């Protein structure tokens, strides 16, 4: 933790970065994102198990970008988000400095996509066994049961869009849920509107979600949104051997094709 503070101070003092996006503490001993702009404030940074928010979404927030060059305290999900955003042309190489931790707990400064890619390879990026078990549970349900399960979950949705707003991959200035000519998705949080919203949201994250879990954590009514994304991660891995957020140059799996793709992928 001390090293993180030192690294942040160094970056700010040397002018290599004008803002360090990291984690700090709130009044009720909560953990929250903080934006350190003065070297003497680097002491406010913390890094522990409670630092779970995916900070990648702040790098393109207008007001944060405005401060100048950004450095970010980067957990694995943050790094994978950066690579995924890079592959979607949302960040440029050498634009962001990632302050990351190696598996043996050393602080490293990663300032190119190549360095981030190499770092990410040191970690396991597949679904955990627990995550796979949750999927199995849903898949084991019969059709009616599954429909009822999701209907019950979706009926709780109040369309606050915290799930979307917390997701680094949801950066569209105008979400498809808000396009109204034509209106694809009903605005009201009734059952029909909620089902369409959730299927649309999940589909738009297929092959892009890096499994940080923020959408589910953000939801004020505890809808298990991560189940939808686990499912897609698993499917893309099984069918195309594809995992999002591992490389800055990989092309989007659902918009590219290979000569050897079989026609059965459409059904």
């Amino acid at each position, binding site marked *: 933790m001390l090293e993180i503070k030192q690294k942040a101070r160094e970056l700010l003092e040397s002018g290599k970065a004008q803002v360090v996006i990291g984690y700090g503490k709130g009044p009720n001993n909560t953990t929250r994102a903080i934006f350190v702009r003065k070297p003497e404030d680097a002491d406010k940074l913390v890094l522990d198990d409670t630092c779970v928010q995916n900070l990648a979404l702040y790098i393109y927030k207008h007001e944060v970008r405005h401060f100048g060059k950004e450095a970010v305290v980067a957990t694995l999900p943050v790094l994978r988000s950066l690579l995924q955003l890079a592959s979607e042309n949302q960040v440029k190489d050498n634009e962001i400095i990632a302050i990351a931790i190696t598996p043996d707990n050393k602080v490293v400064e990663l300032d190119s996509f190549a360095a981030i890619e190499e770092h990410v390879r040191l970690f396991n990026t597949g679904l955990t066994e627990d995550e796979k078990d949750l999927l199995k549970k849903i898949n084991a349900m019969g059709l009616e049961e599954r429909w009822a399960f999701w209907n019950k979950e979706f009926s709780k949705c109040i369309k606050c869009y915290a799930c979307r707003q917390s997701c680094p991959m949801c950066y569209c200035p105008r979400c498809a849920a808000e396009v109204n000519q034509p209106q694809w998705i009903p605005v009201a949080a009734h059952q029909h509107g909620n089902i369409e919203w959730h299927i649309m949201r999940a*589909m738009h994250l297929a092959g892009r979600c890096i499994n940080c879990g923020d959408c589910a954590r953000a939801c004020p009514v505890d809808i298990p949104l991560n189940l939808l994304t686990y499912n*897609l991660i698993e*499917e893309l891995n099984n069918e195309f051997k594809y995992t999002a957020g591992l490389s800055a140059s990989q092309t989007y799996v659902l918009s590219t094709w290979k000569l050897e793709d079989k026609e*059965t992928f459409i059904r």
Partner: protein
Amino acid sequence: MVFRHLLGFSGVDLRRITFSWVSAAEGAKWADIVNSTSETIKKLGPYDSYHAVAGLKEKEAEYVGN
């Protein structure tokens, strides 16, 4: 395929969904797909569990608690 999988995971009845790739030159294939799809759907009858949430009337339902 990915979308189909997602629908299935969400509890949508996949027997009612058909995706296919038909080139403009494949008229016969098109006819086959349309015929077989409409036949399956006819056999299955109305999709009651979907209509139960999608009609205008149902959207008027009194919202109580969460």
